């Protein structure tokens, strides 16, 4: 038997042994019991807490709410005068969530449908322009104290997130500069996610995904506001 045949045989035997673990019985009773209680408790909007916890909870939560409002107000005021820096790491996480359906989103297949659905969700939704790809879904994200309008598109089998924000609200962090004709882009790569950012008109734009940087630049180049 040749070395390759032997390796193939070993691989098949290993895979076959592992596949049998899928047939192993697991005792899901306590997990199901927990899920049942959790769903019932949460569906009724009543989480079981001891009485002293309830008594303590209300004034504490009220105080916490006031504190959160104060901090949020301060953050909004302090950020309103200047633009914030877009964070590539956070943007990569947003793409991951959007591409994997982990973030709340709206299914849409056309620009018109996406704009209609987003406008119905919030006043902060920016108008989505024509996009060079098949639209899959759209959603809104908070990022650096501004609202990102995100659209998931598919082009040549690759999923990409197009994020749009008010051009005055976000700045692009320093990265690899890319020129295409009269357009200027900045490229970043985080955790295997490529992204190109640009300012176009009064909008900030980011196109990100696992596709090659050139592909993302081509997509970004095709977006006009």
């Amino acid at each position, binding site marked *: 038997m040749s070395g390759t045949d*032997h*390796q193939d*045989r*070993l*691989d098949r*035997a*290993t*895979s*076959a*042994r*592992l*596949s*049998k*673990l*899928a047939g*192993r*019985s*697991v005792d*899901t009773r*306590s*997990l*199901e019991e*927990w*899920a049942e209680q*959790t*769903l019932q408790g*949460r*569906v*009724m*909007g009543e*989480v079981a807490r001891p009485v002293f916890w309830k008594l303590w909870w209300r004034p504490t939560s009220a105080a916490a709410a006031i504190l959160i409002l104060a901090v949020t107000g301060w953050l909004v005021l302090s950020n309103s005068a200047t633009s914030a820096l877009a964070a590539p790491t956070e943007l990569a996480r947003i793409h*991951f969530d959007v591409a*994997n*359906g*982990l*973030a*709340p*989103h709206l*299914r849409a297949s056309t620009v018109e449908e996406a704009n209609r659905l987003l406008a119905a969700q919030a006043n902060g939704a920016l108008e989505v322009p024509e996009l060079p790809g098949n639209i899959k*879904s759209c959603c809104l994200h908070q990022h650096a104290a501004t609202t990102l309008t995100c659209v998931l598109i598919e082009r040549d089998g690759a999923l990409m997130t197009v994020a749009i924000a008010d051009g005055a609200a976000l700045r692009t962090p320093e990265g690899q500069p890319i020129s295409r004709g009269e357009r200027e882009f900045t490229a970043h790569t985080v955790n*295997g996610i490529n992204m190109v950012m640009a300012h176009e008109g009064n909008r900030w734009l980011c196109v990100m995904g*696992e596709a090659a940087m050139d592909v993302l630049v081509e997509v970004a180049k095709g977006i006009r506001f």
Partner: protein
Amino acid sequence: MSSRPIPHAQAARFRRLAWPLMSVVLRTAECLTRSRDQAEDLAQETMLKAARAIDSYQDGTDMRSWLLTIMRRTHIDWLRTRRHRPTHLSLNAEELDVLSQEDQQPGRFDEQWEEPEELMERFDDETVIDALRVLPDEIRWTLLLVDIEQMEQVEAAKVLGVPVGTIKSRTHRGRAMLRDRLYEHAVHRGWVDSKEGSR
């Protein structure tokens, strides 16, 4: 975690779509963690996140992949949290993706596996799972999806957020690493000779 209520319609959708896969979630959690309690915790957190996000699940797509993607992210968060907690340093050392020098040359006993099918069958499930648990996280996840859950490599690539080529190489490498671990068990039990591999 916040205790905001899950609406009735959402809960009903969760029961219909995700509940039947509870055994898959728990089974996977058992291979990722070191105790039954940890597995239950990981499975609970995954299912709770799934219940809250169930409206974002797209009908017609693979619910199992969707749930395992959530579990994958939850597991990463767990590991990150532990890495930042000094009190969990001993657990960190076991769970980090640190490859020993031996692991970087997997398959060192491969030439000694004469009847691999027969030898593989001699290991009980717990031994195989224990051998899986000591593999690096990314390798373990790949084998969980590709070999145990029999997921297509394209689908596994989506769950793990890596290219298909990476899944192929991790699968090959992971199987070899697992075999090395199991061969050491076989030597320890006197099933095979203890001579070192020729590599």
